């Protein structure tokens, strides 16, 4: 029995069949091992690599924060819009397309045609089109036309608040004004959408996905009063028309808080198009500067002229060198600090000072000097202080350094007291050889209005994010002169309006105080010209000032060359509106 079985088993072919079987089984075991290696040992690495080729991450753009005025009116907001683009390769008739589609959207048809016939694979027809318009265009179902959502920034107040809000570029980056200062806060934090896509770019239904929502930008609550802003701008625009000036700038400050109630400039510009609406800019000497989006009230510097005398006189009073009634005997209308300076024409030798009006030598009190704005008298007052103490007060009033307002690229101004300059102190006393910004001067006057305490001007009072409202903190205040000195100065300022150079600044029902300023501009050759910068800075009501208004008019026609003629009326218009807006009780006579 055993023999045949053994014989059968030993047949070579049978052995070999067994070998085949073993070989196959061994091969399968090898496969199993390899499978284990891939699916267990290397699995996580491989899965991760695979995922990384499928995973796409899209940034979710956060909604940009809004900007409000002090009453909750919108100055800037972001609204949904669509950007319409074409895929040139799908456009059958570029010429027809450029004319029809481009025409509908108001795009430049020639440029569009050029782009459509180039080898680009993506051409914007028009970006950030209103949803309604975009849907209408897309509804025409023209081959090659597509859109993607791209929110756009709009400024409901239009040109009225453009100097304050500034604007963003087409990509939504802050370029000017608050949009630039608070760009980071307004911008918010982008979110992220992650998902798995197939090789053709579509979402894989069963794939992993995760959405981290974007955090919207904070809303800014400003101190701007939109109606006042509007009235101020209107006054400025009218002033340009009347005086033929190159530009007009107004800053309105709340005396007690340093809040900027209005900040305007003319010519105006539209923050949407970033174009000035003033066609006269085409003929202007310098069209670019005319069209400038910059804010001169914060960045522009000018020699203030007589408005500076407030500081000179206040310093002398505070230091006890003079009193209101101190009389300077025989004040002439011309003074030579450098020998023979007045004998040379123009400014070849510095050191000749003259009053605006010719007069014989007369005895003048400090009050008279101030109200009549006598240069020579003011220099004599300054002489009682000496240069060091004068500089000390100029700096205390905030000239020569940034006020710290929340606005970009603020100018420091210039205090020119170079060593060896024998006349600089005298020039500075009457507002030459120093350069200031309109805002600096407004803040200096506000210190007098605020019983001698200087306060940092600011535009944004609080911000609102998802967690609620946060007040802006860290505003600086400092005492500059005593309350008594401030009171005296206010009376002098009132006198300027009541019987001095600032008569045009008077308004019904309120006692107004202020100072005119007229400074000749330096020409290209470094000499003073007939062209002036006319200014008026003042406050009301004078007994308890609530508002400071600073007006600067650049290069008015000769007939309007003084601050009293061109700037004081603008001041009156703006101040009246400001008092009205703030509901300030009248303290003066009805005329």
């Amino acid at each position, binding site marked *: *029995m055993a*023999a*045949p079985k053994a014989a*059968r088993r030993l*047949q*070579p*072919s*049978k052995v*070999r*069949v*067994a*070998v*085949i*079987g073993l070989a*196959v*089984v061994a*091969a*399968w075991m*090898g*496969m*199993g091992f*390899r*499978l*284990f290696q*891939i*699916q*267990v040992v*290397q*699995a*996580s*690495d*491989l*899965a991760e*690599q*695979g*995922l990384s*080729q*499928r995973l796409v991450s899209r940034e979710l753009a956060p909604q940009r924060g809004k900007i409000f005025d002090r009453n909750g009116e919108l100055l800037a907001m972001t609204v949904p819009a669509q950007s319409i683009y074409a895929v040139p390769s799908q456009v059958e008739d570029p010429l027809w397309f450029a004319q029809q589609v481009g025409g509908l959207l108001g795009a430049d048809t020639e440029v569009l045609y050029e782009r459509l016939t180039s080898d680009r694979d993506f051409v914007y027809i028009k970006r950030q089109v209103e949803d309604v318009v975009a849907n209408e265009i897309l509804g025409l179902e023209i081959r090659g036309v597509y859109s993607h959502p791209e929110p756009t920034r709009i400024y409901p107040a239009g040109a009225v608040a453009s100097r304050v809000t500034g604007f963003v570029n087409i990509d939504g980056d802050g370029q000017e004004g608050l949009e630039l200062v608070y760009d980071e806060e307004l911008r918010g934090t982008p979110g992220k959408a992650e998902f*798995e896509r*197939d*090789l*053709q770019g579509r979402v*894989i239904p*069963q*794939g992993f996905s995760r959405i981290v929502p974007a955090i919207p930008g904070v809303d800014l609550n400003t101190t701007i009063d939109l109606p006042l802003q509007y009235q101020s701008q209107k006054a400025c625009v009218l002033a340009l028309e009347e005086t033929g000036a190159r530009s007009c700038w107004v800053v309105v400050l709340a005396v007690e808080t340093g809040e900027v109630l209005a900040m305007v400039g003319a010519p105006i510009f539209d923050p949407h198009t970033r174009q000035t609406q003033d066609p006269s800019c085409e003929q202007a000497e310098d069209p670019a500067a005319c069209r400038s989006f910059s804010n001169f009230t914060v960045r522009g510097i000018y020699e203030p002229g007589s408005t500076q005398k407030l500081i000179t006189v206040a310093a002398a009073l505070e230091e006890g060198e003079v009193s209101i009634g101190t009389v300077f005997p025989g004040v002439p209308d011309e003074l030579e600090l450098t020998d023979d300076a007045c004998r040379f024409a123009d400014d070849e030798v510095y050191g000749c000072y003259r009053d605006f009006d010719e007069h014989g030598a007369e005895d003048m009190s400090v009050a008279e000097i101030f109200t009549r704005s006598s240069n020579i008298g003011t220099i004599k007052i300054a002489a009682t202080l000496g240069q060091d103490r004068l500089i000390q007060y100029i700096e205390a009033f905030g000239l020569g350094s940034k006020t710290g307002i929340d606005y970009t690229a603020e100018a420091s101004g210039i205090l020119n007291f170079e060593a060896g300059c024998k006349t600089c102190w005298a020039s500075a006393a009457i507002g030459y050889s120093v350069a200031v910004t309109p805002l600096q001067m407004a803040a200096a006057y506000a210190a007098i209005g605020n019983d001698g305490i200087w306060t940092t001007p600011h535009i944004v009072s609080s911000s609102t994010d998802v967690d609620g409202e946060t007040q802006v903190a860290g505003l600086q205040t400092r005492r500059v002169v005593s309350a008594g000195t401030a009171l005296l100065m206010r009376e002098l300022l009132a006198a300027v309006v009541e019987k001095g150079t600032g008569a045009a600044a008077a308004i019904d029902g309120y006692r107004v105080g202020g100072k005119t300023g007229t400074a000749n501009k330096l020409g290209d050759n470094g000499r003073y010209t007939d062209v002036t910068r006319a200014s008026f800075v003042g406050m009301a009501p004078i007994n308890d000032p609530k508002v400071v208004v600073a007006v600067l008019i650049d290069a008015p026609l000769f007939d309007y060359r003084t601050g009293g003629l061109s700037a004081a009326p603008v001041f009156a218009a703006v101040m009246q509106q400001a008092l009205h807006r703030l509901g300030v009780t009248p303290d003066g006579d009805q005329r």
Partner: protein
Amino acid sequence: MTAKVTSIASVRAAARDRAELLKANNRAATTLLVVVVVLVVVGLGATQSASSAVALDRTEDSLFFFKRQLVGVGLGTLALLITSRIPYRFYRRIAVPLFLLTIGLLVTVLLVGTEINGARRWLPLPLVSFQPSELAKVSVVFVLAYVLERKHKLLYRFGHFIVPILVTVGLVGLLIIKQPDLGTLIVIGAAALAVIMASDAPMKYVFVLGLATVLAATVLAFSESYRADRITAFLDPYADSSGDGYQVIQGYYALGNGGLFGVGLGASRARWFYLPNAHTDFIFAIIGEETGLVGGLTVLGLFVVLGLAGWLVASRAPDPFGRMVAAGITVWLSFQALINIGGVLGVVPITGIALPFVSFGSTDLIVSMAALGVLVNIAQSGVHGKT
């Protein structure tokens, strides 16, 4: 053996032996059928999963490939039912005519075949495309088994051993190289080698032949630049991860993503156009991704069981022809599965051949199922020495 007294007992014992073996063989046949049914079902599911995205993209019918595979399964089942009922001895008679027909078709396909990707493999028939090389797998096994059985007493002479092999395998091989379809040729070579090993030919001849085959395969592999590229890609797929190595790497990603238990049916990521030929050559990667190591090992296990059952059938076949045919078919199916899965796992170069019973593709499915039917028939045809 000579004693008369033992004759009754020995007859009884032999009868008992035979009954047991028959039972065992029936079990083997049942096992084979179960394995195939499971593999075919797995294949249908995996085909749908792997192909729906591509199908939708190309034809707007996500069931496009599934429906075709369903037709293939129907025809394959029919073929299996028929061949399992045809006594395998019948193939002795048709072995030579079938072989000649195959040669004829292989020549025809070279002349009028449809060229796809630089290869002429397909005969354009009115309803379905047909690959003569698939038929060649069957006919080479049959004709080689037939010839080697008839010559089994002369096989100790090398000439008698080698000439029939060269005439059959060599001729088919040349015609298939002309197409070219090296993957199928390798499977045919392996099947032929299995038939030869299961024959009564001397060991040394078999050894020499085996060595010569490996050598020839190596030369062939490097004879065409695209094959050499595939082999380079196989040695280091990451060297050209967006080119020749791309498919293997995407297969790895799929398998790695599947991990132990898989991402779930229909949840494959690779099928979203990342893995080329996901429903054909690389269907195993989709199975591994969706059902994980567990599913992958199950498929491997099914093929091991198929191989073992086939091996049992071969070793218990009633005659040398049956043994050789069973060995040939078993090795063909096992080897084809090994080469396919090995390609996905990066242990052998990619050849482009299908995973039997599982990959999308009607011709391969029908021919494989028909071959399995033959195996079932051999299993049910009795035991060695008794006919």
